[in-house]
């Protein structure tokens, strides 16, 4: 994935709570077997019905519990492909948050008030290393796990990092702890 360090620019706003991944990318687009090209289907029903308008700015400010529901990574793929590099919200669903960090789309948690301030400011600068969002209303801090930050800043592939540690996996398997479970190939 592409390294991310500073994200700067205009802000798009989706002021709704509990936006689920079925809305972000409706199920009919999950039939594709590719990883790219989902941006044009982002919020397919809401945008086509004229219910919402979204500009492909670098930053999206969203409501609480953003990305709830299905684990489909197609949702972060669509948001990133549409043009967003960061999403600011008062809270995220766990799986969605994790999925974003795997592809270099920054999810950052700010308070409701801070999210509103960034939305009103209309533009912002996010510094991943400093863990800050700066806008006309002030400087707001967010938190990101150190190992996630390291991966985001350097654009590192999780799998590559884990495989560097393959010896630990071998050692774990050698203890026999992994061998109690069912053997699917014996079914």
């Amino acid at each position, binding site marked *: 994935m592409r390294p991310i360090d500073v994200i700067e620019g205009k802000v798009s706003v989706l002021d709704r709570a509990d936006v689920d991944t079925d809305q972000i990318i409706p199920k009919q687009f999950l*039939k594709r077997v590719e*990883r790219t090209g989902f941006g044009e289907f982002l919020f397919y029903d809401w945008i086509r019905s004229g219910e919402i308008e979204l500009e492909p700015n670098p930053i999206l400010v969203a409501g609480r519990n953003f990305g709830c529901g299905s684990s489909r990574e197609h949702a972060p793929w669509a948001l990133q492909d549409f043009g967003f590099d960061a999403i600011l919200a008062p*809270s995220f669903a*766990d*799986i969605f948050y994790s999925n974003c960090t795997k592809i270099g789309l920054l999810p950052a948690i700010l308070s409701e008030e801070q999210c509103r301030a960034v939305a009103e400011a209309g533009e912002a600068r996010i510094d991943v290393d400093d863990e800050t969002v700066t806008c006309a209303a002030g400087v707001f801090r967010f938190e990101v*796990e150190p190992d996630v930050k390291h991966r985001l800043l350097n654009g590192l592939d999780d799998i590559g990092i884990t495989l560097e540690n393959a010896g630990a996996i071998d050692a774990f398997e050698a203890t026999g702890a992994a061998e109690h479970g069912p*053997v699917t190939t014996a079914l």
Partner: protein
Amino acid sequence: MKTMFDKIWESHEVSDGLIYIDLHLVHEVTSPQAFDGLRLAGRGVRRADKTIATADHNVPTDGTKAARLIADELSRIQVETLERNCEEFGIPIYSLGSERQGIVHVIGPELGVTQPGMTIVCGDSHTSTHGAFGALAFGIGTSEVEHVLATQCLVQKRPKTMRISYSGELGAGVTPKDLILATIGRLGTGGMVGHAVEYAGPAIESLSMPGRMTICNMTIEAGGRAGMIAPDETTFEWVHGRASAPEDFEAAVERWRALPTDEGASFDTEVEIDASSISPMVTWGTTPGMVVEVTDSIPDPAAMDSPADRESAQRALSYMALEPGTPMTSVALDRVFIGSCTNSRIEDLREAAAVVDGRKVAGSVRGMVVPGSQAVKATAEEEGLDEVFRSAGFEWREAGCSMCLGMNPDTLAEGERCASTSNRNFEGRQGKGGRTHLVSPKMAAAAAIEGRFVDIRDWS
């Protein structure tokens, strides 16, 4: 003193924040890009013997016998891609046409590959279902699917722990589905975020495995990372004799008996709920947390405290075409769907069949029953349940996710209103413009007969 979660987590830590995965369930929708990633990087599957696949989301439930016969081109490509990927990487697969095919969260427990103490993942948020066996089970995204295929491990931040203790017993006609809907209604759609949740108390201990699975299944609808229930005799009895049950079963049971939370272990959050106060529940809005007792009326957004809740409720009612103050029992239905990884097991079908036996589906309603797996279907047919449903006017279909998510031909038409035993009432979930009300199998069955919601406790 440790919680069950602590014990499973700690026994699977390969290194700090790296967790070993005992079972990886794979389906056609969230895996193709992961297999592509492996090929691009020249990586293999580390433990095909801890991986199993089925086709469920996309499959038609009309009796199509093989992937190549699926009419929808994109669905066909996706299922055929799964079959090819599994063949290339040596992963066992039960695809369309197999007698073991079914919804991934139904076939795992059915085959006995879901066992206490395991870590289980799948590229599907309802993986929490398997926690009913005292396993740590959760949904992952496609990048993580690729990670598990390549390493059999997952990078994870340790979640917080929550215990929900249910005192008392569920009343007559009140089911595990009602218990979990009431719980989500109370805690909210984000109420369990960041937590592995253990369900405990007498009302849980007295449940069958299917009931426990229904509860753990919907943990994700309150944002929970995982739902878990301590394994006990009911659990052991379920696993015993299944295709993949441990050879030395007694030794396995000995290990499993050590799993339950130690007395005095502490949780980050404790919640207490009186199970005897729970009624049959029906959702009225577009999140599973928008739920009321069947005897209640559609809530009035104007009476809600927070502006955000008010706005969400207004939007939901407008989408659902419902007026505040309308009694839930006067809401009329067009469709009834009995199925999904939440409620499509043989016990669910037996409960629904007992309600419809000898009756007729209302003329205004189209009812569908979709068994969770080919094995459930076969058992139901041996017991004559298919005949009960058919003669009542229900469609009796083949196994799959069906109308839970509308990725296959089973969908709601624009504006249709459906009583559904599935897990999500999101906008458009069952079809664009479709309106979903989540209920238990009994409540869905009775609603099909009456053409509107009824309180199953008064209904005979």
